[in-house]
């Protein structure tokens, strides 16, 4: 802390007019019970300013990335959450992640309530973000955008909950790779030159079981009185390394093995720079080298965890910090868990099954289920059933917005009460639509994606949570504001679905065109001919002798022979 102060004062002296801003960085390493290692980076930039104030143009940027700041003020964005994930978070094996995200890309934005043309702003915003993050976000259009009524509330300041200003879209097909990581790293004040970001070598980050990177921007209180607004930018990066494939069976791990880099210094612009190692599970079996005297406790996701804390802003931390030798142990089963699949066979109909598990032994709790299904799966909403413990479970709230062909997807939101220790199954039947031939993707036989459904819930906590918002909490435990002591907020994403639609054989369009044209020409022509022709009884022509006789008679002027 002491080493940071002069720097801050120095910078403040340079820019007296600028508002206060600060930057924190943090890495949490948690061994998972499946034997994998979960590494979660969080970078937070706080800035005491307001982009959306009337008549005030923010032009001087220091820590906050200018590219994002300009986007926020141009499109009057109140809150922006974007995530890119490659892989599926295996809740049953890995427990809850600190910040959940669905496979592919997810974007949800709350616009300021002064915006008149929300759809227009949304369209432009996705295109701009597409450029910033080098991703195919420009494929977000009205056919895959929904306005959830209950599942996505603003996480920051403000209590406007009119969902007309909310837009939510996922691209389950989006593939995340280095070209998305590089622009993401550039948003950091130190780039990947110093601090924790040094560890982000893409070669290693993408040699993993799960990779997810996200950007969350929201307004928060400047202080506890909440008299003025500050903007918070959180960049998170979550990676799960597979011990099985690359560890050759040895349960030994080190920063160098994971990232093929070591830490040398904290980011000089950071006010705090810490590494946490979760040692809750059987700490005596852990052997951390170097050992640290600092132990921290944090209540995160309903569980009190103990961490070894390494403060990178202290000089004595450096020297070793090379290898952690970890031994691992079983973990609590996640209390909330969901999965989804398509049932049935054939290309006409099908059924979407969403299964939600409540593993709490004695508490029931409600969950919000949100499903956004593309229009080409035509849902039969009358077949919607919710069953728990083989009994009908009537949802207490249903918000359903039917799809319009080629314009908007189905949106289904339900509030379902999950009985304790139960499995709740939500099923709805659908019919597969026949697309127009230009609407097929270039690889139609791959199938069409249906984005993850989202289960949001306040899960009863095993331990009491702290509700007051104090500064000394680690970043990973303070993302979602806790309002109650006895429960915590969890969002679970199911796997996306790959559904086959009836697909014509595109390899022979020429044959098809030739064949249909021939059939139409021959068939139509001849039938038209048959139908329009007038038929007459054919007079058999008279024999030659009679004709000759008649000719002579005509010349003579006598009546003809018949």
């Amino acid at each position: 802390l002491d080493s940071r102060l002069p720097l801050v004062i120095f910078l403040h002296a340079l820019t007296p007019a600028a508002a206060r801003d600060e930057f924190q960085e943090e890495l949490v390493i948690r061994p998972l019970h499946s034997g994998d290692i979960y590494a979660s980076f969080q970078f937070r930039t706080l800035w005491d300013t307001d982009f959306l104030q009337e008549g005030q143009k923010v032009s001087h940027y220091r820590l906050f990335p200018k590219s994002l700041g300009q986007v926020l003020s141009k499109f009057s964005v109140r809150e922006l959450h974007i995530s890119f994930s490659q892989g599926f978070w295996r809740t049953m094996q890995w427990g809850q992640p600190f910040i959940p995200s669905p496979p592919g890309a997810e974007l949800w934005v709350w616009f300021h309530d002064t915006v008149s043309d929300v759809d227009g702003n949304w369209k432009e915003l996705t295109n701009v973000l597409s450029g910033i993050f080098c991703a195919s976000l420009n494929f977000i259009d009205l056919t895959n955008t929904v306005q959830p009524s209950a599942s996505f509330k603003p996480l920051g300041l403000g209590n406007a909950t009119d969902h007309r200003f909310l837009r939510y879209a996922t691209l389950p097909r989006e593939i995340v790779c280095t070209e998305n990581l590089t622009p993401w790293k550039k948003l950091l004040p130190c780039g990947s030159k110093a601090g924790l970001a040094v560890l982000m070598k893409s070669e290693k980050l993408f040699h993993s079981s799960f990779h997810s990177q996200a950007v969350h921007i929201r307004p928060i209180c400047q202080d506890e009185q909440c008299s003025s607004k500050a903007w918070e930018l959180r960049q998170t990066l979550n990676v799960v390394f597979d011990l099985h494939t690359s560890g050759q069976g040895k349960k030994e791990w080190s920063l160098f093995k994971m990232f093929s880099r070591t830490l040398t210094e904290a980011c000089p612009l950071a006010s705090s720079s810490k590494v946490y190692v979760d040692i809750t599970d059987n700490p005596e079996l852990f052997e951390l080298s170097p050992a640290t005297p600092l132990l921290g406790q944090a209540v995160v996701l309903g569980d009190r965890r103990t961490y070894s804390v390494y403060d990178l802003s202290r000089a004595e931390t450096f020297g070793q910090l090379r290898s952690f030798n970890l031994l691992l142990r079983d973990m609590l089963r996640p209390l909330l868990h969901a999965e989804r699949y398509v049932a049935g066979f054939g290309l006409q109909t099908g059924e979407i099954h969403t299964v939600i598990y409540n593993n709490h032994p004695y508490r029931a709790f409600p969950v919000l289920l949100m499903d956004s299904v593309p229009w080409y799966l035509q849902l039969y909403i009358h077949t919607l059933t919710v069953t728990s413990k083989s009994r009908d479970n009537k949802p207490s709230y249903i918000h359903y917005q039917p799809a319009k062909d080629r314009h908007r997807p189905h949106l289904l939101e339900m509030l379902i009460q999950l009985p304790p220790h139960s499995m709740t199954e939500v099923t709805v039947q659908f019919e597969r639509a026949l697309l127009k031939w230009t609407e097929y993707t270039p690889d139609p036989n791959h199938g069409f994606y249906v984005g993850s459904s989202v289960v949001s819930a306040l899960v009863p906590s095993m331990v009491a949570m702290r509700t007051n918002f104090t500064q000394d909490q680690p970043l990973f435990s303070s993302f979602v504001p806790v309002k109650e002591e006895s429960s915590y907020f969890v969002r679970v994403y199911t796997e996306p679905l790959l559904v086959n639609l009836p697909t014509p054989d595109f390899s022979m369009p020429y044959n098809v065109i030739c064949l249909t044209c021939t059939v139409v020409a021959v068939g139509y022509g001849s039938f038209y001919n048959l139908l329009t022709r007038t038929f007459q009884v054919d007079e058999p022509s008279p024999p030659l002798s009679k004709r000759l006789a008649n000719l002579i008679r005509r010349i003579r002027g006598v009546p003809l022979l018949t």
Partner: protein
Amino acid sequence: MGLLSDPSRRKVLTGLLTRLNTPICIVCYLAGIVWFMGLAFEPFTLRTYMSENAMGSTMVEERFSSGERALSLAKEFDAHKRKAGGMPVEWLVKAMQSRGLEVFTQSFSRKLPFPDENKERYMVRGTNVYGILRAPRAPRTEALVITAPCSPGNTNNQAVALLLALAQYFRNQIYWAKDIIFLVNEHDLIGTQAWLEGYHHTNITEYISGSLRGRAGSIQAALSLELSSDVITSLDLVLEGLNGQLPNLDLANLFYAFCQKLGVLCTIQGKLQRNDWDTAEGYTHAAQTMMLMVLKQACGRSWGDHGLFLRYHIEAASVRGINSFRHYKTDATTIGRLLEGMVRKLNNLLERLHQSYFFYLLPSLSRFVSIGYYMPAFGLLAVILLLRALDLWVHLGAPALAAVDGVTEAEQPSSPGVLTVLTPVVISHLTGVALYLLPVHLQEMAVEHFPVSETEAVVLTAIAIYTAGLALPHNTQRLLSGEGTEQGWKVLKLTALLYLAVLLGCTALINFSLGFILAVTLVPITASITPALYALVMVLLSPAFTILYCVFIYQELIEAPVSVSEGWMLFLSVISQGILDHALYGSLVYPLLALFIYPCWLMFWNILFWN
């Protein structure tokens, strides 16, 4: 069409067709048979080629090396199987878990409609064990399946062991883009059916099965392994699935390509490929291979675990290890490499296999006959029915025309009422319904009154109803409308001919082999039937006898000829298997024969006893 709109030319054409009807029909029939037999002649067939880009150009390097470990694992598995007296579920779960898979089990039970005497089972209870290898950074949308049945006794241990060895090897690789499901199923097809129904949450065949907890998205392809000895001399590829469905030809091409690459002998229908196509033996060999495929496809049952996957639009094939050609040996490592190569190429797929043919016949693994080449053979047979129908139509219409031309219009020959045709149609179909329903439902009563087992009761009831059907229709028909008229049977024959043409046409579109075999036997007799024909000829060409002939031909082709009495026993078991396949897996051959083909044949039978 100018031809038809001009009445005089139309008359000439119909005149030609009626006058030359019989010669044309005979020529068509012979041409159809010759065409079909010509399909096996190599210069007339196409060479197979890989259509799928994603599998063709990208070569993979096989590195699997733990074949020996797989063989020792097979011994261990065998010991545990003996100890458990069935499938060693716990051992399998542990073995898969220790290899880093997510392991799940599914228990199922199914009461068969009547005991299966071939496999000695009635009330089947079992457990499927499957482990899922989660592909890194894949969103659980696509999967591949490798399955090995856990068969009773000594068989198939090597397949399960190789499956586990492959799982261990695959788990340490990072290139997977699709999840891989390793399935060990109990009670062969019944287990597979239960697992597939559980995975897709369908229930079409009344299984009682536990729901599945672990899934991996839509399955793109499946391979079934059957290995029963440590040393394999050749690998046989089995493609024929339920209801005559076949997997995409690219799957066969893939197998063939890897056999070539690794120098493994490969067969289809258990027959090696020969290079001497220009000799008589070479042609006979190809024709036999193709005939075997036609017979297997026609019977509509699944010839391996893969066959049940096809219903779910999952391309699947069985790879069966054979130990017979003594001089040539392949070790387990090579077979593991072959499978590794196939799975890796399937993993590279961007789309489902769809580029190549779904309808084909294989005279050898490197040659194929596509639908465009074999359909004319059936078309030539089917057109006979239409020609005969046209002939009858013209004949039936001719006296009426004469009456219009004549002076007296009052005395038209009395056209046969709808009733005369409708009665035999309805009665025949009711007999068909009885044949479909009664055997299974009456088994208890039959067992009570006769000293037979349930299976025999079912089969014998079926044969009894079949025979009784021969006596029924013409008697009742005569009771209803008295002496049949000349016109009456002609109208009936016309209806029956058109009905048969539609039936055979639809069957051939779905299952060419079945349609063709039925056409070969049914077309000549139905086309030439008059009340004067011998009943014996008619009986000898009935559907039941067709099945009997097929049994004998099949035994002849697999070089295991049987005597008449053995053939009869085989025939009985084929019938019971057909009924069981329908009940257990939803095979459609039995209902098709009982509800449509047999009644249609009975309509013709009716004509025989018209006067």
